[in-house]
């Protein structure tokens, strides 16, 4: 495909038609031009293709891996409903196991997933990582986090509590009225 010089005029002509390129007869003086056009068209196609395909393939791969593992892990209640896991459960689990697992790369891996599986599949890590594509649909499946999620929640809570404290300890009640 890359060596157009070996192709006959008819082959180049049909390739041009394939790519929807308007063209005249492929003769000596026009051959160069058409070869260039074909190269450009093919490069464009290659660029457009990889991204959508890759995403689908990866998600499929992860789902397949996960499904295969499901029967072997009956103890884990999360197995039965991978996509319906509510956030609090997930956060709690994160909290539990963030202690035992260090490093954000790992936390990103099991963020939605079973840590047990991951301990077996660490080297292959990325495969089981965001299998909860269903749950993660609203946000990016594999966004790397420098700070674990639970830490962020804690900080948020701390700030909220602090603000409430400050607010409640204010002398005058004027602000309250204004807000109402």
């Amino acid at each position: 495909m890359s060596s157009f010089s070996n192709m006959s005029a008819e082959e180049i002509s049909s390739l041009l038609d394939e790519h929807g390129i308007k063209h005249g007869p492929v003769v000596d003086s026009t051959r160069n031009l058409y070869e260039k056009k074909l190269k450009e068209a093919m490069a464009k196609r290659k660029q457009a293709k990889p991204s959508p395909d890759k995403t689908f393939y990866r998600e499929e791969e992860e789902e397949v891996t996960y499904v295969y593992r499901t029967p072997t892990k009956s103890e884990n209640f999360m197995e039965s409903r991978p996509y319906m896991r509510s956030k609090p459960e997930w956060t709690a689990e994160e909290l539990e196991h963030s202690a035992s697992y260090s490093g954000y790369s790992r936390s990103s891996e099991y963020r939605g997933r079973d840590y047990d599986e991951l301990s077996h599949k660490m080297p292959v890590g990325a495969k089981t990582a965001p299998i909860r594509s269903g749950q993660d649909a609203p946000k990016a499946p594999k966004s790397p986090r420098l700070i674990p999620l639970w830490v962020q929640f804690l900080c948020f809570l701390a700030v909220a509590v602090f603000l409430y404290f400050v607010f409640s300890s204010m002398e005058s009640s004027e602000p309250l009225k204004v807000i109402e």
Partner: protein
Amino acid sequence: MSSTSQKHKDFVAEPMGEKPVMALAGIGEVLGKRLEEKGFDKAYVVLGQFLVLKKDEELFRDWLKDTCGANAKQQGDCYGCLKEWCDAFL
């Protein structure tokens, strides 16, 4: 309708005969030399190429750019000149 140069008017006024390639609008000394080196030494040879490209503007402009390095304006002038000539005489 954009104004056309004197060169353009002169070219489309009559059959091109044996006019040199530099008689074409948009083709000056430098471009003309490059075209001659590639074998396009007469205006009618460029006309031949123009016709083989089915008088398509985009194809002809690309070809001209690749062959002699014409810029957009030069491409447009040459294309317009040949097109009008064809409309009149072909």
